[in-house]
Structures are given as C-alpha cells and as structure tokens.
C-alpha cells in the first residue's frame, strides 16, 4: 500500500458542508501531488470550500477561473510553466457541471492538444454549489431542485467521452477509497500529456443522507456496481481491487438507492434503467479488462 505523506495542504478551516467528500478528496490529491502544484478551479463547490478572501484553506496556489474555462486556463498555464522550464503540476479540480456540461468544450480541446495536465472531476451528480440543480451527470430518477419529479434522462458517460481522446491515463476513483485515489493521482502525474480521473463524491446535503454516512455511501456505490473503480493506462484497462470483488458478487442496487432521499419516488422503470446501465458498463469493462 502506498505511503501517504503526513504533510497537509488543506488547512482545517474549509467552509465545506458537514460530511463533504470533496474536501476529503482534495486532501489526498494534494498529498499525492506535493507542493509544486497549482490547482485550477472553475465555479464549483470548491470555489466556496477554499474559503473567502483574504483567507484561504488551501496551501498550494489556487487559480480560480470562470465556469467553462478550467481546461483552457490550464492549457495556457501548463504551456507557460513548461516554457519557463518549470515542472509544476497543473491540476484542474472541477465539479461535474463544470466538466460534463459547461466545461466540456474546453476539456475536449485541451485533451485533443495533449495539454500536459491532470484533470480531476469530482462528481456529486448535480450543481451542488448552487443548491443541487440537475447536471448532465445526475442519474436517472434522482430528484434535484430542477427535477422535482426525478430526472427523466440517463447521465452522460463522461469517461467514454474522454476515452475518445485517447489520453495516456484515465481512471475512476471514489472518496470512500482515498488510498486508491492517492495512488491514481500519483500515477497520473508521472505520465506526460492529458490525464483524467473521475471521482465519485457523495454529497450528504444534496443526496439527502446523514453526513456521517459519506464513506458508507461511496462504498455502497462501488459494492452495488453503480460506480466502478478502474484505470486505463495507454488504453489498457485494469479493474481496481474494490470493484473486482464487487463485480463478482454485487450488492442489490436498492442498498444504495434507499438510504438516499434523492431517490425517493424513483419509478420501477427508472430502477430498471439504472440496472441496465450497470449491467452494460460491467459487461463492457470486464470484456475490455479480459
């Protein structure tokens, strides 16, 4: 198991909600990256979590940028650091809205140009910062403030969209498995070009479960197969250990759905749709990993 450094880059003064998984993820990400790192952050929960001027809870430079612009900003920053002979890690830390919706174009452009950076999407499956409106990453059947009767559409598969750009490294992670996230960030930063990690970040405030159950909810997502942990290095797929076990004997999906207030009122058809999504992804990933 990887040795986790003791240095802390997230100071104990964030303005995150109780039970927030995003600030937990960022803590491990910065332990993996070390201090020679700039975080590029579009509008997202971390815009708030980092603290208000004149204070900051993050002990590496944080460059805040407009919602649609994170990957493009990182493109310029990475090019400039390299031109100045610096190896500084440029890491985008963006929510799902800033990644799969409004930031998708700049993400695609940066990956096509093989920008030397790491793009991290922490996915709480809605616009959390503005009070849980639906995003392109919200699963079907989930209630948000703009889908009060449950979302009618399935979520976008951002991993396959990014995969179509043939990045050297693409992985998934989850806040409930911080050492797995740590190792993946470490690996991504050793590889040149554009790398991507999609992190499931359960949100007690938005998903409506008790703040003490954030880790449990992440584990249930993996154990039910709703979230699969894997990594793809130069195209070669490897399922990560926690998901290998879960994919052999998955827990019932209801174990994940029923503790969450956002899935109250999900229809049997929508549950079936989620199950079909899970099965199709499982089949595809196992086939490719074989």
């Amino acid at each position, binding site marked *: 198991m990887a040795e986790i450094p003791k240095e802390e880059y997230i100071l104990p003064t964030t303005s995150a909600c109780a039970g927030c998984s995003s600030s937990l993820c960022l803590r491990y990400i910065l332990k993996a990256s070390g201090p020679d790192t700039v975080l590029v952050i579009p509008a997202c929960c971390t815009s708030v979590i980092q603290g208000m001027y004149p204070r900051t809870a993050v002990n590496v430079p944080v460059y805040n940028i407009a919602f649609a612009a994170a990957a493009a900003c990182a493109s*310029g920053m990475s090019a400039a650091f*390299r*031109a100045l002979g610096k190896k500084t890690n440029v890491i985008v830390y963006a929510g799902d809205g800033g990644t799969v919706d409004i930031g998708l174009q700049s993400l695609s452009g940066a990956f096509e140009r093989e920008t030397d950076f790491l793009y991290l999407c922490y996915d709480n499956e809605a616009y959390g910062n503005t009070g849980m409106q639906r995003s392109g990453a919200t699963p079907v059947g989930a209630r948000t403030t703009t889908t009060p009767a449950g979302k009618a559409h399935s979520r976008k598969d951002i991993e396959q969209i990014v995969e179509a750009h043939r990045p050297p490294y693409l992985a998934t992670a989850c806040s409930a498995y911080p050492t797995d996230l740590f190792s993946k960030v470490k690996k991504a930063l050793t590889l040149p070009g554009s790398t991507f990690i999609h992190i499931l970040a359960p949100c007690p405030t938005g998903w409506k479960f008790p703040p003490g159950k954030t880790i449990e909810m992440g584990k249930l997502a993996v154990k039910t197969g709703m979230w699969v942990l894997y990594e793809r290095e130069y195209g070669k797929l490897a399922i990560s250990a926690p998901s290998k076990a879960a994919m052999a004997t998955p827990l019932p999906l209801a174990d994940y759905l029923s503790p969450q207030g956002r899935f109250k009122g999900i229809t049997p058809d929508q549950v079936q749709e989620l199950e079909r999504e899970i099965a199709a992804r499982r089949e595809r990933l196992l086939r490719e990993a074989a």
Partner: protein
Amino acid sequence: MHTIATGNRGVAEAVREAKPGVVAAYPITPQTEIVELIAQYVAQGTMQATYIPVESEHSAMAACIGASATGIRTFTATSSQGLLYMHEMLHWAAGARLPIVMANVNRAVAPPWNVWADHTDALSQRDTGWLQVYVATAQEAYDTMLMAFRIAEHEDVLLPVMVNLDGFILSHTMQPLETTPAGDFIPPLSLPHAIDIKDPAAYSPLTGPEYYFGFRWEIERSMRDARQVIREVEEAFAGKFGRRYGPVEEYRTEDAEVVIVAMGTLGREAQVAVDRLRQEGIPAGAVRLRWFRPFARPDLAGREVVVIDRDYSFGFGGVLAHSLRATTPCNPYSVIAGLGGQEVTYADIAQFVRQRKPGEEFWFGVESHGDV
C-alpha cells in the same frame, strides 16, 4: 527595414518583436492572417513562443489568462463574434490584473452576417476594464502593438490592452511599413502577483461586499494612471523610433471652427475631407481619437463638432458622439456611417460637415430618420 505590408502583417511583425512566451488564438475573418503569420514564425523558429491553437475564443482568452498568471508575456488576436464570445474572459483578464495584449480586427456583429469594418464589436466591450486604442495605418498598428505591451505591463497599469484596427480597410490593405528591432523598448515582464509555489495564494477567490469594491476601484485607479503611462511610453517611442503618437491625432485644428471627430481609418479619411473643405473656405479640422479607454477627452470647447460613429448603441445613439457629449462641452452633429463596411469617402465626410445641424443625428444612407 522598409517594406510594404497589410495591417495584419504589421501586427504580427510587432508581436514577433515583442517576444511573447505564449500565444493562444482561434481564427476568424478578417484576423486570420495575424494568427497564420504567428503560427508560421513559431514553426520556422523565428519566434520562440508556444502557440496554442485553442478550440474557441473563450478558451483563447482563458489560456492567455492561465499563461499570463505565471508571469509570462501573452498575446491573442480576434474579431467581431470572437470578441463577443470572449466577453466573460475579457472581464476576467482585467479583474485578474493580467497585462494580456490583444489585436482586435474590427468587424460588424451578426446577424446578418457581415465581415466588414465596424466598431460595435470593440465598443460593446468598453466596460470590461481593457485599455482600448484604435489605429489607422499599418505603421501605426505596428508601433502601437509595441507600445501596448509596455503600457499593459507597466507597474502602474497591469491591465490588458486591446489594439483595434479596421477590418479589410486596414487589416488587408498593403501599405508602407518600417519595422525596427524593438531592442530594450519593452522591458522584461515582472508581474508582481505571478503564481509562486513558494508563496501560495488563492487568486480571484470568493470576495465579500467589504472587499470587492476595493478591487474595482484599483482597476479604475490604474485606468487613470494609465493616461500618464501612455504619455510616457508614446514619448519614449518617439525618442527611440522617431514616430510620435498621442491620445488623439489632430489635423489642422489650430484655427478650425468645425472639427470632425472619428476613430480608426475614418479618422484618416476625415483629414482629406478637411483639405477639401478648406479649399471651399470652410475652416475645418480633424481629431482622430486613438485611446478610447482610458477615454482621450479631446478639448473641443468653442468649436462646432461633427462626430462619425462606425457603431451604434440602440436606443441611445453613437457611442463616440455620446462619449464626447459627456466629457467635453459640445453639441455634436452625430453621423452614423461606415457600419458593416459601408463605403464612406472623403467627399461624403465633407458633405457631412456642409450639412451639419448641431445636436442632430444623421444615419448615412438612410432615407428618413424621424425624431431622435
């Protein structure tokens, strides 16, 4: 070196002399020649910049912001729809106090599609915190580009600068151009707030009502300070290269009783009209306004004023006409002419002066005006 070149080439040659570290740009007519030339210079190795061929203008400015934040010199160029698409990031660049320099080739805004000269694109960005200057010749484009980097990067300014040149009329017209090695005219960039991993900071974080206005005031304070910096840099340029510029270019104004005010190439065309009017015994002069932000504020007191706007603010009037009304005692005859590349000759401009009616607005080419 004496050569002939388009306005676009004048811009590109000056950018090569200014040695930016990063250029991020997206092509749009009639700016394309600028980015094509820079891409060629980089490919040939005659320019050491990293050229980032971004996927949109929004990303072009975002990439310039990310690059500039590290303390490296950056440049981009755009036009019309591209400038409008950048709008959000124009505010960001100025708010983040980044000395990015941009050439904007002035072009009309759609719909309907029109690729010809018009100032509405740049004037609709007037409140973004960018310095704006309008040029009229290829030589002036070249010279102003060199000055723009020095002005933007000056410690009393640290704001982005937009150099505007009229689409096709200037961007694509071959004119004499003298290129000169810039030497030490543009000092190395020393950005006081460049990202420093040894001194981590949060840039542009959430800022409450008790602090926000202070940052806005700092922009305005620098805009005001920029007037003096512009004067100094234009003076230094004249000393080194022998060509003198100012906030405005005056032509035969000393004894003029009626003054034509315009920006860009129309301001040059107006000078020809002045010669013709003087032959008729009309004591005319011309003021070509170069710096729109900070606003040049020409002294027009005691003179009749004819303003030509190649732009319009709907429900209000010509942007330049109203800017003059607000800043100098005058009651201009406001002429709206040249929109979308509409041809305006010196003969037309002379006629605007002959038919002037102080306080009225006239749309060139429109049959019936009704009341303002």
